[in-house]
Structure formats: structure tokens, C-alpha cells
């Protein structure tokens, strides 16, 4: 390693206007090289440099679309009829039990904070998905930015050539985007982590490609002055971001083949596992917010079997993600949130499933300075009511922003000039940090 390259790294870092302490720098290099295993020292430095650019916080949202059953995940009730056939298992933290469906998560319980007293009134998928992605209910006339877009806007690295908000696992109705913040904060949506973004190689040489881009830009003017001003402005931004992205060395983050086989194995098999691994790679490259979607949790029918299948898909990857982040020294700066739009009814329906139940459900937080190994809130034995420390959606959102060092009372100005707070009301769940 020579001093010139170090100099270069420092320049990169200070250009972003962020102070880097020598201690952090060395720790990051050590962590990266340790974790990298087969990587060369230079690679490790490079990786660490990228990490340096994002000294700020990052967030990974693990989204369970359809509404996961709290009884079959993090809040089993084995001693009540409503708990059904699901048994509870012990975890690495004595006194805390979770559903038997999550043996891997049980082993990383030290890092998890389970909230068992989430409560809301929205039992409709569309509205609840919107609510749990925005912290607001849909309201005519206001195009709210979603959580990921707000985080990217507040603490995203504008100089990053990768988009600051990536959503893995396909389009999801009502999960939102940049809203009135604009296309800059829309997520880059990937259908699958096993398929890196398509069409990232220009089909002409670089000189010609740039000439084409210039020509394109000059031909956008006519539409811009004849009714398409906003559309053209957005389009220009997109063309620029897309070109920046595909020219960026950070594109490697999308290539899971670059991970050592042993690490890939530790995440397990399947779409969600690949998504979690890519999330870590992206955060490592300075991406601020990554959402990984798991579909199919709307288990009205045959709920126990179907939920077991689903937990089988997410348990190992989620635990591996937390372990991996920790090992790389990234967990302190990366908040991981496990969440769905609501929970499921305590009573088991005649089709052996559970229906929508927003009144009492659960969520999990890890990393980002959150104190793990604890359970916040409780429900009664039947699971029908929150009995301790109710957590409203606004409380939950406020806590996420707080963890990421974002002031939840920060106001954005909507397109009609109306100030809109990131979160309207609510209180930070202080126990998270105790």
C-alpha cells in the first residue's frame, strides 16, 4: 500500500464533508480484511474506502408482505388455544422465547429487540402497506415519500453513484417512492437478487455512448418547452443517474458471485437469502436504504404449514445478515428492521389460517445502536390485546428515524408548499436504547 492511494482515499472522504477519525479508519480496514478472507489487501482497502464514504447510518428493511403471524414468528403463545400448534423455543437470551419456526434467529437474539405491542387500526393490505411504508395513511393531494426515500433524502450520500434506495423483490403496490421529493429518491427496484440489474452494459464504445447522451440531452428541449418541463427534468435526472450507476465500480455490489462460497452458504438458499446478502453488499458500497421483500404472508388458509415454509425462507438469511454485519463492524451503523403491514388474528379460522389483525402484532429491530436481547411490550395470554407499552406506527417510525440520527420533526415542503414532518406525532421508544 502506498501513500498516494491513502491520500486519494482521504480526499474522497473529506470531499463528502465528513470527518474521519484515524481510529475508525483502521478499524474498518481491519474488519474488512478479516471478513474478506480470500481478498487481497488492496481489495480490502478499496472496500473499506467505500465504507468510509458512508460513515453515516444505513437501514435494511426486511418486509414481510401480506402480514406475518406474530404467533408463528416472534410472539408464540404455546400455553393458549390461540397459539395453535406452534411451539416456543429458547433463545440465546435466557427468559426470551420465540416461535420454533425461527431457530437461527433464536441464536442471534442478543442482537434483536422484539416489539410485541405494535398496534394499528388498518386491516386492509393496501392501506396498511402504505401506512407501514410511509408513517402516514394515504391522503388525497399529498404524495408522501416513503420511509426509504426520506432516509435517502436525509442522510443519503449524494455523491454515491449507486442509488441511495434499493428495493429487492419486485414491485410492491403501495410501498411508495420518492413522492414529492422527486425521482432522485425513488427506489431502484430489482425483481430478484439473483438477477442483477439488466442492460447495464452500453452497446456502443464509450466515446460514442457519451456522444449519444449529449445528443439526447440536446433533443429534449423541444418537449421541455411545450408542456413536458417536469417530465423532461425528471428524465434527464434518470438518464444521468442510470449512466453514473452503470459506470460505477460499485456495480460489483449486485454480483453475488463475488461473495466467497462459504459466506453464501451461511445465508442459505432462496430469493430472500440472496436479497439479504445483496443488501449487505449494497450498504457496504454506501447505499443508505435497502428493502428486501418476502411475499406470501397472507395466510388465511393452511396458516401453520404455509407460515412454516415462509419462516424457513427468512430465518437463516436474517440471522446470517445480522451476524455478517456484526462481523464486519457494520452492525452499529446499520439498522435492520423486520416488519409486515399487520399481524394475524389470535383465533384460528376454520380453514386453519389466521385473518388480518392490526390490533396487536410484532416487529423486530437490530443494529444501529439498538440494544438487543430484549422484548418490548406485551399482549394478554390470548394475544388479543396489547397490555403493556403499546407502540403506535408513529412511535415506531419516530424510533427508526431517531436511530438513524434523523430528526423525525424535520419538515419537507410538499409541492404545494405545505410543510410535512417526517413523522407526525408519536414518541421514540426509549427502551430501545437503554
Amino acid at each position, binding site marked *: 500500500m502506498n501513500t498516494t492511494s491513502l491520500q486519494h482515499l482521504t480526499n474522497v472522504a473529506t470531499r463528502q464533508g465528513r470527518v474521519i477519525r484515524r481510529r475508525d479508519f483502521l478499524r474498518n480496514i481491519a474488519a474488512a480484511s478479516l471478513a474478506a478472507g480470500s481478498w487481497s489487501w488492496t481489495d480490502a482497502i478499496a472496500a473499506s474506502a467505500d465504507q468510509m464514504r458512508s460513515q453515516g447510518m444505513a437501514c435494511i428493511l426486511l418486509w414481510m408482505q401480506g402480514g406475518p403471524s406474530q404467533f408463528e414468528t416472534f410472539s408464540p403463545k404455546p400455553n393458549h388455544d390461540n397459539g395453535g400448534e406452534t411451539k416456543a423455543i429458547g433463545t440465546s437470551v435466557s427468559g426470551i422465547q420465540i416461535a420454533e419456526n425461527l431457530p437461527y434467529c433464536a441464536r442471534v437474539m442478543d442482537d434483536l429487540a422484539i416489539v410485541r405491542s405494535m398496534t394499528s*387500526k388498518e*386491516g*386492509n393490505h393496501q*392501506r396498511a402497506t402504505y401506512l407501514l411504508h410511509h408513517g402516514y395513511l394515504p391522503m*388525497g*393531494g399529498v404524495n408522501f415519500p416513503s420511509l426509504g426515500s426520506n432516509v435517502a433524502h436525509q442522510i443519503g450520500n449524494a455523491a454515491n453513484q449507486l442509488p441511495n434506495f434499493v428495493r429487492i423483490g419486485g414491485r410492491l*403496490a403501495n410501498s411508495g*417512492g*420518492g413522492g414529492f421529493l422527486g*425521482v432522485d429518491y*425513488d427506489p*431502484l*427496484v430489482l*425483481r430478484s437478487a439473483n438477477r442483477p*440489474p*439488466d*442492460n*447495464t*452494459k*452500453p*452497446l456502443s464504445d464509450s466515446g*460514442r455512448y457519451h*456522444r*449519444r447522451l449529449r*445528443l*439526447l440531452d440536446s*433533443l*429534449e*428541449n*423541444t*418537449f421541455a418547452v*411545450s*408542456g*413536458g*418541463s*417536469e*417530465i*423532461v427534468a*425528471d*428524465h434527464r435526472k*434518470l*438518464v444521468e*443517474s*442510470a449512466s453514473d*450507476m*452503470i459506470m460505477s465500480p460499485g456495480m460489483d455490489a449486485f454480483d453475488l458471485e463475488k461473495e466467497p462460497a462459504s459466506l453464501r452458504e451461511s445465508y442459505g438458499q432462496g430469493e430472500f437469502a440472496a436479497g439479504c446478502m445483496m443488501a449487505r453488499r449494497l450498504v457496504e458500497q454506501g447505499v443508505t436504504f435497502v428493502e428486501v421483500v418476502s411475499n406470501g404472508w397472507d395466510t388465511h*388458509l*393452511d396458516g401453520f404449514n404455509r407460515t412454516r415454509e415462509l419462516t424457513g425462507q427468512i430465518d437463516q438469511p436474517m440471522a446470517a445478515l445480522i451476524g455478517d454485519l456484526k462481523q464486519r463492524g457494520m452492525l452499529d451503523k446499520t439498522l435492520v428492521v423486520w416488519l409486515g403491514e399487520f399481524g394475524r*388474528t389470535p*383465533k*384460528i*379460522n*376454520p*380453514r*386453519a389460517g*389466521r*385473518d*388480518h389483525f392490526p390490533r396487536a402484532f410484532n416487529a423486530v429491530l437490530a443494529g444501529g445502536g439498538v440494544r438487543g436481547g430484549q422484548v418490548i411490550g406485551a399482549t394478554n395470554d390470548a394475544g388479543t390485546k396489547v397490555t403493556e407499552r403499546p407502540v403506535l406506527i408513529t412511535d415506531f417510525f419516530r424510533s427508526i428515524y431517531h436511530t438513524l440520527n434523523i430528526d423525525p420533526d424535520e419538515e419537507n415542503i410538499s*409541492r*404545494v408548499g405545505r410543510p410535512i414532518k417526517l413523522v407526525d406525532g408519536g414518541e421514540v421508544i426509549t427502551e430501545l436504547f437503554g
Partner: protein
Amino acid sequence: MLRVDLFMLLLLLWAPLAKAESPGRLAKRIDQAIQNDVFDEETELAPRTDDYTFVRRAWLDVVGDIPSPEEVTSFVLDPAEDKRETLVARLLADPHFGQNWARYWRDVVFFRAVDERAEIAAGTMETDLTEWLNEGRPWSEIATEFITAHGDVRENGGTAIMMAQDGMTEETTAEVSRIFLGIQIQCAQCHDHPYDRWKREQFHELAAFFPRIAVRPVRDLTSRSFEVIGTDRFGRKPPKNERFPTAEHKMPDLEDPQAPGTQMEPKFFLTSAKVPWGTSDSARRLQLAQWLTENEWFATALVNRMWAELVGEGFYPSVDDIGPDRTTVAPTAVKLLSRKFKESGYDLKWLMKTICQTEAYQRESRPRRETDGTPFVANVPQRLRSDQLYNALLSAFNAPEENPPRGRRPQRPQAAPRGRFAEAFAYDPSINREEAVSSIPQVLALMNSMDVNLLFRGKKGSVLPELIREIKQDEELTTELFLRCLGRVPTSEELEIVKALRQEGMKREVAFEDLAWSLVNSAEFQHRR
């Protein structure tokens, strides 16, 4: 007695014809109503759009494609005063009209599918609906097909909504109400509606028209499919863990979901008309179709949706969330147009003719208004739907469609280039259009995908190399490419830009390939102005 019947029959046959007001006259009345409802003396209206913009707009809106340079030129040169309405009438008679709107409705239905396997029914829906639309069948008849259908989903496109909802009673109910009435009564499924008058009972009474349907797999030696069944035989007890048709719908007890729930009477929430328990599946669904298609919200929902698609903004803020508790920006206009649409016998072509003749439709486009701006002062640029954009790409270079979807026996839609294209470009036509924003993957697909770029290299039947060879004059070739891609001639600045490009010294074909690439990648190409 016989004479009375004959008289009634004549009256019935005559009624729609007699009452369909001429589109031109009604268009004026609609504009007047909007004027009264919305504008004041200070309102600044965008001017009437020029012929270039109009011909491309009408082509995209009616047949979902862009016009050829010959079409554009002859339309612009045509001195006839009524050429705009003549053009719209001609396009409505083209079979691509049916196909364009069948694809639109296919997306309306399948974007809300609960399971990907429902896609198997998409091709058949497109094929059948194309036919129904081209035949000019009334919207009420088409809705009735969708509400009453049964059979193999690859044989009967009317099964699409039920297939998309996996035959589930409550989900099918919600979609029928959303699509045909524009009313989202499903919010009342679990609790009384927060902002509307609907009660939980009313949702489940509507659901009581659909308890006897189910989707079942069909297997024969060569293929697998699904069928929508509607049954009146409930001999054996429904097996656990399987959705099974039931004789009557029961509203679950929220406190005790394992209880059988309350048996609901099939009752139409907008009029409280009901059929007795025990009514056969076919009779109850037919009865619902009749009541629903007679209702004012049935007409209003379609009118509002078509207006939103054509003018860029609906009378209501949303195309599928209207109803008595929502406010409209132009109450007189929407009422008048809806009433006349009903009187026309729910004639969709008539409705399009009428809207296309309004000044509101024919104005120049302006950016979407802010919430406090005045509606309908201009048309609004619309991002092309995936099929429109794909058609435009092929038409701009005279390229034939490769491996087109084969209707009733569809392959996986992604197997064809059109389907792959849709993976990146399709959006749910029911969402508010400002939310259907463009994205990085779309930009990349147009810039860098092989499917698109082969067109510039003269592969896939593209006419580009031939044009470059045959048209010797640079300015003429530039104009040709602008006409092909954007449906207009280049401005003098644009001619200068191309001239400057030519002076950079690369080969002629390279320069014009780059021009074609840039035109296709422009926001203007991807929108209808």
C-alpha cells in the same frame, strides 16, 4: 296484447339509437358544463393543439400506436374542417382499437392478481375483449360477461377477474365493485368504512352474490389450466384447508373467527335490491350484473376513467375510488356525460368520439396541475403504457413483431419480446398517473437492451439502414426520422444540432443511428403529448 309487446320491442330497439346524442353536439355541452363548473373569467386555457400533436395523440389514445410519416403528413395537409373527428372515427373502426383497450383492461385486472399463476388467463381475456370491443358491444354486456362467466380460463376471457382473485368470494366482490363501479367497498370488509357510508354488512351482502364460485385446476393429457366453476350442489362437507364454494356467504365474527359467522342475504348495496337465499349461482350473478349495470355509478366509473385517460385528469381524483362520498371537480359535466353514456346504450366508441371532440381533449398539454391549480385548462402528457411504447418502437422502424402472443394458447408472457418489455415498462393503469413514474431500469432498457438496439443496426427487419441509404439529403433524412419517432418535423434548432453532429466527422450511418437512438430515448418519444 301482441301489439303492446311489439310496440315495447320496437321501443327497446329504438331507444338507444334515438337517444344517443351526436358526439359533436354533446362535446360542446360538456365543454360548456366544465366552463360553468370550473373556470372563471381569469382562467387561462391552453390553446388548441396543432395537427401534428393531435394526430399522434389520437393514434396513441385510440389504437395504441404511433402514426406513420405518411399518415402524419396527409393529416396535416388535409384541408377538411372535420378531419379530426374523421380521423377518430376511422381509428375507432380499426381492429387495433379493441386490442389497445383490451390490453389496458387486462392490465387493470391482472395488476391486482393475487397469484402469478393467474397470468394464464391474460391472453384469453385480451383476445375475447378485443373482439367484444371491436364489435361495439355495450359496456354493460361486457361487464355482465365478466360477472357471470364460468368455464376454462383459456376458453372464456370473461373469467379473468375471478381467476385473478383465485375465485375467492370476498376478493372477487371487491374487484367487481372497484372495476365496474369505481367504489372501494372492500375497506368495509373488516370494519365500517372510515370515510364512507358503507357498513360492514353491506360489503358482505355484496359478497353474498359470489359464494358459489371457485377456481379449480383442470388437467388433460397435454396441458394444464384452471376453470371457474359456479355450483349449486353442496353434497359433501368442505374439506379442511381448501377453498370450497358454499351455498351462502357468511360474514365472519370478528371476535370469534372460528364461529360460522352470520349468513348474509345477497343484497346490492347501492339500491338494497336483494335476491332470496337459495338462489342458484347463475341467477344471482346475472341479477347482480343487471342491477350493477343499471346503476348510475356504473356509467360514472367508466366515464371518469376514460376521461382521465384521454384528458389526463379525471373528474374525480382517482379512477377507482369514486362514489357518493367523494367530491368531483366538475359535477355538472360528469353527470351529463354519464347520463348520455347510459342513454347511448353504453356505447364505448360513441363515448370516445364525444370526448375526443371536446376542447378539453384537444388542448395543448401542460404539466400536471398542482393540487390548487384549475383542472382541465390543458391536456396532460401521459407516459405510454408498455404496449403502446412497444408498438411505437416497432412502428418507428417498420419492424414486425417477433413471436407475438398467440391469444388463446398463450406461452408464458415473458417468453415473447413484448412480455419482456412489459416486465420493465408495464404499470397498473388504475394508480394515480403521477405515481407511475419512469425508472432507472426503464431508462437502461431503452438505452442498452439488445431488443431495442438491434433496431438501430437494421436487424429485426428495421428499415433504418435502408432509409439512410435511400434518403441522400441530410435534412430530409432528419425530418423523416423525426416524423417516424415523434410524429412531427424537426425545429430549426434541432436541424442545426444534427448538422453540427454531422460535422464531427463520423460516418453518415453512424451519425443517423445515433440520432435514431437519441430520439427513441427522449422523454418525448415515451409520452403522448
